[in-house]
């Protein structure tokens, strides 16, 4: 009886276990069923994939075998699981790879585009650079570029020729480094505002002396930092020679012009002063006319010579202390004869006790001659010219003015009267004339003295010219 019971129990237990196993298996097959359709699009595994799959296979196998399935089943289950996982993985990887490669391609494309632009820019810059270099090479003037330390960065063939050096030897050195002392005669620093410095050197090729002018400009970067200097060298030997010739010419012309004037003037004055015996009133009258016109001619010649000096920047002052009333007196006396022909009165109003001023007397007389001469020209018969000298309100300078009651000057013309060759608008052609340089010279002389000159006028109401002289 008991043995029958045992058989029953064992049978029941086996049936339950079998049933459970069947249920489990059927579940498994249901889960994996979905993958079999996709197996059709499954790609073949490469050997490396299988190789990579090997450890995974082991893990799955171990996991399933713990469930107590048979080795056969276990193998089968794990194989299928692995296939499914691999396939999914493969798909993901392919997808990712695709995405990545797309992104990569886009980046590459972008990169190559910008590279193309950069290349284009580079080529443009290169051709620009070549163009600039070609321009610099063909500039007739010598061009030297130095860095902030004064070392040569580049120089063009004209500069090489002018300095008698080779650019290759010079790069990295100072411009004048190799010039021997005997070659470099002088190196004058130009004053600010002038046209750069002058370099005088003896040519290394033919021993001729040459004068170069170097006009330099500082090169600044965008932050305003000095990064170097560019110098333009020009050969001014010929110009210098011409300047010298012109100076000599002006000197000899002025000598030639003045010599006869002086001889005539002295001859006339000897007769007029009765040094050479008595003369009749008619003779005296005509000689006076001759003398007067000679004075005007002398003034004109002086003005012209001064103009050429002014232009050459060569006007110099010989100053010494002088009493302004004496200076005014001298000018008024010189022009007295002329003013008398138009019955014009020259009145002097000179403040008492004025200090002496340090001036070039001859030049100030010339200024006054010009101002009073103009006043005579522009004032009708019987007019009045007032020459006034007084201390300025601050007491630091002398104010000298010449005013007349003549034609006057229009406001528009007033600003321009001190310009060279300028003449005030309406003029009576027969009577009033001049060269238009007198006032320009007057301004130059006054400014050389450290003073200022100005004109005030109203059309028809006379004009007043005032200049100041520092005390």
């Amino acid at each position, binding site marked *: 009886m008991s043995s029958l019971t045992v058989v029953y129990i064992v049978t029941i237990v086996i049936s339950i276990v079998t049933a459970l196993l069947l249920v489990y298996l059927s579940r498994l097959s249901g889960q994996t069923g979905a993958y079999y359709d996709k197996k059709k699009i499954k790609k073949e595994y490469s050997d490396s994939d299988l190789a990579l799959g090997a450890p995974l296979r082991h893990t799955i196998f171990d996991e399933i075998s713990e469930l107590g399935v048979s080795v056969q089943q276990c193998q089968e289950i794990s194989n299928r699981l692995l296939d499914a996982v691999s396939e999914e993985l493969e798909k993901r990887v392919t997808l990712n790879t695709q995405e990545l490669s797309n992104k990569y391609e886009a980046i590459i494309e972008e990169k190559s585009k910008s590279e193309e632009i950069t290349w284009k820019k580079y080529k443009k810059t290169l051709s620009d650079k070549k163009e600039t270099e070609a321009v610099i090479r063909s500039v007739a003037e010598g061009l030297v570029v130095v860095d902030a330390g004064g070392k040569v960065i580049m120089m063009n063939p004209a500069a090489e020729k002018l300095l008698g050096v080779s650019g290759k030897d010079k790069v990295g050195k100072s411009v004048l480094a190799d010039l021997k002392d005997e070659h470099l005669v002088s190196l004058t620093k130009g004053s600010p505002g002038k046209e750069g410095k002058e370099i005088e050197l003896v040519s290394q090729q033919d021993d001729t002396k040459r004068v170069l002018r170097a006009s330099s400009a500082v090169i600044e970067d965008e932050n305003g930092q000095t990064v170097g200097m560019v110098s333009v060298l020009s050969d001014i030997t010929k110009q210098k020679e011409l300047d010298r010739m012109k100076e000599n010419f002006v*000197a000899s012309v*002025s*000598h030639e012009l*003045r*010599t*006869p*004037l*002086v*001889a005539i*003037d*002295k*001859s006339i*004055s*000897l007769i007029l002063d009765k*040094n*050479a015996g008595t003369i009749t009133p008619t003779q005296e009258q005509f000689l006076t006319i001759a003398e007067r016109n000679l004075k005007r001619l*002398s003034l004109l010649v002086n003005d012209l*010579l001064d103009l050429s*000096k002014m232009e050459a920047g060569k006007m*110099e002052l*010989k100053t010494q202390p002088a009493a302004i009333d004496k200076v005014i007196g001298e000018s008024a006396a010189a022009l007295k004869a002329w003013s008398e022909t138009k019955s014009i009165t020259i009145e002097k109003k000179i403040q008492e006790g004025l200090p002496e001023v340090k001036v070039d007397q*001859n030049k100030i007389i010339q200024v006054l001659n010009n101002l009073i001469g103009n006043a005579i020209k522009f004032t009708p018969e019987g007019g009045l010219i007032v020459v006034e000298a007084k201390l300025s309100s601050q007491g630091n300078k002398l104010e000298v003015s010449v005013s007349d009651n003549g034609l006057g000057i229009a406001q528009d013309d007033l600003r321009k009267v001190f310009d060279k060759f300028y003449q005030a608008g309406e003029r009576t052609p027969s009577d009033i004339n001049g060269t238009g340089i007198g006032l320009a010279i007057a301004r130059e002389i006054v400014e050389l003295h450290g003073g200022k000159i100005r004109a005030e006028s109203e059309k028809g109401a006379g004009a007043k010219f005032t200049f100041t002289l520092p005390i």
Partner: protein
Amino acid sequence: MEQKNIQVLVVDDESDFLQLMTFWLQSKGYSVIVASTGEAAVEMVRDKKPNVVFMDLRMPVMDGIEAIKKIREFNKDVPIIIISAYVDDPKVKDATGYGISGVFYKGKDFEDGLSLLEVALRTHRQLKK
């Protein structure tokens, strides 16, 4: 005209000016000798020993400065007044280094020349004492 018994040498290559200057100095009572070149001037100073010299600077061959240098080699004494045609002549500056008593500008009145002459003679006499 009162005779001053003073001999003036006037040196200028411009004979017109020379005549005028001579006439005027003579009218003021001076006795005048003239030279129209630097060389002649040097000889005149050596031979005639004038009391004072008026010397033009711009002359051909030997100019005024050269003549003054030559004169100063043997006569450090005689007052020399420079004659200049114009105020800004740079030669005037060059000449001042050789002992001159003044500059007479041709454009100025003869009276200016006369006062220069008188000052030079007076100074010279005082130095002699």
